């Protein structure tokens, strides 16, 4: 198991290296001279040249790339924000907790709702309940999240005046952003759970469980649901990764000072170092989540667990060989 985790962590290295290469390439083709952004507008040519030397912009591209990689890897140096002249890494890490907070809550809420809904729809396939759930998932997955956010603001903040429309640090101001993010996630996860459940319910081992005289509710939860956990875990992973990407929009709407808003602001202000730093950090988070999901697979799926634990599977085989009639 430990070896597998280690392997999985090592596997992240080439992916992240690739991301850094992509970001570096973006840096190269980005229009404009970074020096203009970092120095006051009235800086002299000499000052600019000195800055350029300092930033290594006069070095050959290979050396620039090497320095960039080393900077990112060893010092977490993501450059300097054009807007604030602060370290991008420092700014992003200060905002990260807010983004993660929303995403984790949204995942939690969406699982609480989506799993029972998905199971219900699958068990009562083709019934009225099923149709309603299917329509909900269809519509829920199709609503643009910024629009949903604005509508929620309109109802809860403007009309009902029960919740703040913008983030202001209070606990209440977290509610709308979390609802917005979880709504879409509930729709998509419900659909996933339903499809998988329908697949599992057709299997022979479900028939076997019924033939034992087991209660339908236990058949559904003990036998069927445990087998759908595998895709559900995958759903959590891709959902969380997707939410972190989607945080860009939702944080902008609700003015939550998280990484998403930071990146969105960087885009509109053409603050490229911040944008590129944001890409690296968000990609890192996504990659780590995918890794965790892969490791979680081995926990929910005994088939994977034993194939990965090579020594024990060999032991089993000798047992089979010894087996007598």
């Amino acid at each position, binding site marked *: 198991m430990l070896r597998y985790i280690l392997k999985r962590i090592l596997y992240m290295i080439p992916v992240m290296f690739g991301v850094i290469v992509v970001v570096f390439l973006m840096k190269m083709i980005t229009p404009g001279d970074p020096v203009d952004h970092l120095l006051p507008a009235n800086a002299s040519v000499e000052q600019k040249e000195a800055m350029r030397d300092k930033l290594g912009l006069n070095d050959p591209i290979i050396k620039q790339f090497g320095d960039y990689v080393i900077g990112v890897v060893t010092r977490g140096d993501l450059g300097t924000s054009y807007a604030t002249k602060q370290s991008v890494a420092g700014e992003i890490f200060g905002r990260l907790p807010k983004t993660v907070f929303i995403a984790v809550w949204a995942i939690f809420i969406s699982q609480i709702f989506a799993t029972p809904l998905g199971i219900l729809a699958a068990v009562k396939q083709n019934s009225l309940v099923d149709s309603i759930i299917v329509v909900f998932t269809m519509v829920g997955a199709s609503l643009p999240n910024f629009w949903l956010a604005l509508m929620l603001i309109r109802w809860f903040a403007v009309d009902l005046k029960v919740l703040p429309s913008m983030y202001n640090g209070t606990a209440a101001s977290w509610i709308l952003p979390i609802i917005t993010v979880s709504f879409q996630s509930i729709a998509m996860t419900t659909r996933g759970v339903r499809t998988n459940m329908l697949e599992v319910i057709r299997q022979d081992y479900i028939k076997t469980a019924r033939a034992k005289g087991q209660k339908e509710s236990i058949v559904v939860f003990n036998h069927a649901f445990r087998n759908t956990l595998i895709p559900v875990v995958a759903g959590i992973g891709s959902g969380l990764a997707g939410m972190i990407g989607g945080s860009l929009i939702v944080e902008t709407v609700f003015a939550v000072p998280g990484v998403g808003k930071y990146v969105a602001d960087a885009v509109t202000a053409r603050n490229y170092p911040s944008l590129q730093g944001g890409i690296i950090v968000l990609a890192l988070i996504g990659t780590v989540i995918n890794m965790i999901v892969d490791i979680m697979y081995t926990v929910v799926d005994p088939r994977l667990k034993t194939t990965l634990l*090579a020594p024990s*599977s*060999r032991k089993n*085989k000798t047992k*089979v*060989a*010894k*087996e*007598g*009639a």
Partner: protein
Amino acid sequence: MALIEIKNLKKYYTTPRGLLHAVDDVTLDIEKGKTLGVVGESGCGKSTLGKTLIRMEDSTSGSIKFNGKEITGMSQREFKPVRTQMQMIFQDPYASLDPRMSVSQLIAEPIQTYHLAKDKKELDDMVGALMDEVGLARRLVNSYPHELDGGRRQRIGIARALSLNPEFIVCDEPVSALDVSIQAQILNLLMDLQAEKNLTYMFITHDMSVVKHISDDICVMYLGQVVEKANYQELFINPMHPYAQALLSAIPVPSIHSKKERIILKGEITSPIDPKPCCRFAARCPYATDQCRETEPELKPVTGNPSHFVKCHRAEELAAAQ
């Protein structure tokens, strides 16, 4: 000279758990116009042997001679004319036909691949003739596989294999997916075609009664190796290898008068990954001795019967004792 001569053929696969000896040191001849039956349990390498033989899989080492010509080292271009001579019929008639092709397209595909027909008319004639040959009504020419039953689909598979006028056909469990009444139709068809065209078959199956019915010679495989090879009657009357004996005794006979003694083997077939250099059947063999567990026996002819080969240290000793 035999049509097919296989010498020390090996096919290994690398797997995460080790080297899988799917086909391990197989030496066989198949005479022209005859049928060699290959029997064994799932995982014994019989299908891999068939696929390696017609180069759908590249062999790891060893030699395959077809009509005296070595084919293992041939380039794709050199092999192309040989390929038309060696065809295959697949196990599952539901999976082995492209669902998006009509019967005529399916049967025409090989002909078109080798540009054997001058024009559309000739192609249609050839397809029609093939359909007659395998007993498919011509009105089905535009049907799709999903509209046909297993027996008819398997007839399409046979027509495809026949379309290039091959000398040799590997039949990989062609009837195991079919019901008995349909199975008999297909077996008869295969035997008629053989008599008519002097075809040579390698008939792979796990069904002992089918293999006895259709084969001239039978070889029994166990974990990638041939453990016994003999004329079909000889094998059924006088099996020498303990595994072959057990296999034959285990067949349920559809008769209430057959009172034969069953040999129930212990355990199950193990996997041929990194096998030890000993007799592979030793772990399950009721007669295994230390010699069997330490050294690997050779496949050698039985004294007094040069066409009966067996790979067992104790075969003759046991036969004498009985």
